[in-house]
C-alpha cells in the first residue's frame, strides 16, 4: 500500500472539505437547540434530518428517549459530509 493511496483516502474521509460540510450541517442546528433565538435558516437541513430520524425511529424503537438521536444524527451528518465533499472534489479534479 503506497502512502499516496493512504493520503487519498484520508482526504476523502477526513479532509478539510468533509469537516467544512459537517460544520455547516451541524453547527447552526446545534445553536438553535441551545437557544431557539439563535435559529437561522442555516439550521434547516440539520433540523429536518434530526426530526426525520426521530419520526422513523419512533416507529421502530419507541422505547428510546429522543436525545439518543444525536448519535445517528451526527453519524448521518458525517456520512453526508463525506459524500458531498467527495462529489465536490471529483468535480474539481
Amino acid at each position, binding site marked *: 500500500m503506497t502512502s499516496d493511496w493512504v493520503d487519498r483516502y484520508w482526504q476523502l474521509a477526513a479532509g478539510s472539505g468533509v469537516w467544512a460540510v459537517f460544520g455547516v450541517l451541524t453547527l447552526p442546528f446545534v445553536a438553535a*437547540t*441551545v*437557544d*431557539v*433565538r439563535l435559529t*437561522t435558516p442555516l*439550521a434547516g437541513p440539520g433540523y429536518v434530518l*434530526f426530526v426525520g430520524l426521530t419520526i422513523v425511529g*419512533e416507529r421502530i424503537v419507541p422505547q428510546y428517549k429522543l436525545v439518543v438521536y444525536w448519535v445517528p444524527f451526527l453519524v448521518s451528518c458525517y456520512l453526508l459530509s463525506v459524500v458531498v465533499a467527495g462529489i465536490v472534489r471529483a468535480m474539481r479534479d
Partner: protein
Amino acid sequence: MNRRAALAAGTAVVGTALGGIVVGEYEGDTSPAVPPLSATGTLLEDTDRETTYYELGGGDDGPTGVIIGGVHGDEVNGYRAAEAILDWTLAKGSLIVVPWADVAAIRANSREGPDGDLNRKFPAGEEPKTELARALWNLIVDTQPEIVVDLHRSRGIFETHDRWVGQAIFPTATGDALEHAETLVQDLNDEIVPRTLRFHRFTVGNELGGNRPMIIHKVGADLGTAGYIVELTEFLLDLETQVDWTTLIAARLLGAHGIERVAADR
C-alpha cells in the same frame, strides 16, 4: 406578617420540601414592588403531599382563572412558568395558582407521584381518586373559575411523533375554548416559532369532553368551564424557551377570558 413576609415564609417551606428546586425564584427577589399576592393557602397541610397555592389580584369583580403546574413532576416548564406567573400584577380579574400540584413527583423529578399519575385521577362525573386529586378538585370548584389552564410538556411533537402530544393546545369542548385555542395557535406560529423550525409549529389538539380521567377533561365535563391543557415539548427546545413560551401561552389564554396582567410587569 405582611403579604411579602407571608409569601417568603410560605415559599421557604415549599423550597425546603422540594430540596431547593424552586425556592431560588423568590428568596433572592429584591424587587421594590410588593408582589400583588393577596393570599396563599395549602392543600393537604401537614402531609408529604402538602403544597401551597397562591391567589393573585381579586381587586375587582372580574373573572377568576386557575393555573396548575407540576401535575407531572418531570415537566419542569409547567411549574417554572407557574412560578413566573406568581410575580404578575393583574390589571383585571384574579388568579389561583397551584405551581407544584404533585410535590412528591416534582421532588423525585418523575412524571408520577407515589399515588401514580395525578392526571389520571379525575374521572368525569365521579369523585377524584386520591386525596390530592380531591383537594385540587375542591379548590377548582370553590374558585368557580372562568378558565382553568394545566401546564405540561411532552417528549415529542403532536402529529409528528406517533405517541407524543407536544406543541399543542387541547381545549375543552365547552364554551368558546376551541375558538380561543385556534386564535392562540395562529398567533404563536406567526409571532414566536421560528419559520425554520416548522415541525415545532403549534397545533390545536382534540377537544376534551370528559372521556379521559384528566383534570381538564373533568373541568369541561363537570363544570362546563373552559379549560386548556398546554403541551410544550422538550424535543430540541431549550428549557428557558419552554418556560417563556408556556408563560406566554398562559397569559394569552387568560387574556382571552378577561384576566389581564399589567403590561409594565416585564
